[in-house]
């Protein structure tokens, strides 16, 4: 995927964007704490997404009027239900981010937070916390983005650091993430598979795959299905309720795939807004 170091360049650009965003938010709200700044940053991003939808619709509308072309208007008319669905989701996201409500994308961090309850956490990478949790005689290193502010962190760095700390002595990695469902599938449905369950621009996925390849560590994925609207709007009850079945599956996976005394990494991937640790 990355023969000439594109990933690191992209990561740098995105880091600069993130810092710039945070600086702008700090200028607008100098009294805000870290969690509030993260929430405001997320709010700003949702507002930008809504504004972009508005600008695109206006562009097609005005272009259609200008050229008197029915086809230009028809293009937007045909996809309007999908655009409206997306716009509604972002409008709900705006509210969720501004007040710090957990969103559907937080399914992974929710599971991780439930697992690390009562255990000491430490910041292992930028905006990523990890806890050592004993599960059925194995040691599970559970990690998630640092909450409760809106944050996805850098789970790739966290996993790589844990692998390095254990000198590659990790039996398996289990990643939990929210994934898009197809129409007809139930929200909150849990599915299992292999590979790095992580979205975004691909930087974190690359880091994880790069780290596991060196030590030939198997990666298992558990996903919680939901549609795009649910992923950015306040968490549905079905998605929240899916956390316990996911934990059951994690425990079953650990029993099936590892031996007593092994080390396991469990990573809850997603935006941890409204979810502490």
């Amino acid at each position, binding site marked *: 995927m990355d023969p000439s170091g594109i990933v690191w360049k992209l990561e740098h650009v995105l880091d600069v964007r993130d810092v710039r965003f945070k600086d702008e938010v700090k200028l607008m709200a100098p009294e805000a704490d870290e969690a509030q700044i993260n929430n405001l940053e997320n709010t700003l991003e949702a507002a930008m997404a809504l504004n972009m939808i508005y600008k695109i619709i206006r562009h097609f509308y005005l272009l259609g009027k200008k050229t008197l072309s029915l086809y230009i208007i028809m293009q937007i008319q045909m996809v309007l239900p999908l655009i409206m669905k997306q716009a509604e989701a972002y409008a709900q996201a705006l*509210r969720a981010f501004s007040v*710090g*409500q957990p969103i559907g994308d937080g399914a992974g961090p*929710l599971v991780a937070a439930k697992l690390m309850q009562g255990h000491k956490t430490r910041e292992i990478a930028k905006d990523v916390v990890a806890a050592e949790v004993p599960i059925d005689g194995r040691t599970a290193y559970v990690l998630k983005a640092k909450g409760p502010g809106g944050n996805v962190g850098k789970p790739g760095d966290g996993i790589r650091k844990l692998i390095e700390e254990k000198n590659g002595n990790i039996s398996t990695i289990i990643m939990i993430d929210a994934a898009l469902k197809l129409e007809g599938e139930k929200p909150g449905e849990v599915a299992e598979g292999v590979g790095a369950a992580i979205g975004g621009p691909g930087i974190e996925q690359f880091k994880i795959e790069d780290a596991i390849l060196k030590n030939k560590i198997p990666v298992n994925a558990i996903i919680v299905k939901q*549609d795009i609207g649910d992923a950015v709007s*306040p968490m549905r009850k079905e998605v929240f309720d899916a956390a316990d079945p996911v934990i059951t599956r994690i425990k079953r996976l650990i029993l099936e795939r590892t031996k007593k005394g092994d080390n396991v990494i469990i990573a809850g991937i997603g935006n941890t807004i409204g979810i502490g640790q």
Partner: protein
Amino acid sequence: MTDNVEKVNQISPFLLVIILVFFILSLVALFIAVESLIEQSGTLNSYSFLLIGFFGLAISIYMLLQSRGKPMHVTLELPRVITTLECPKCDFKNVRDFQRDDYIFKETGSCQKCNETMKITAIYREAKKNDQS
């Protein structure tokens, strides 16, 4: 944000003229059809004109109603978000509306039964009755 966009419910005069012409032509077609039916000359043609007349009339009325209709107003309904607090000691549960700064696993408030600090164990959106997807 919408200052520079014209209102969409304005009816174009050009469209009105088209509808009017369409309407008059449909009436003419109907008149011809009725006249030829009364005179009983060319029955096939009179039925064709009758069909064209009614069809044209229906289309012109539909176009007029569509152009006069007000644009749909979309209102976004914000979902109700519920916070559940639980007492770790006596398992007493308290369900209330979400409040700003609530987050899952936050310790807040005291238990009504045993005065122990309660913990937020769940925050989720209340499901709508017709929300099955």
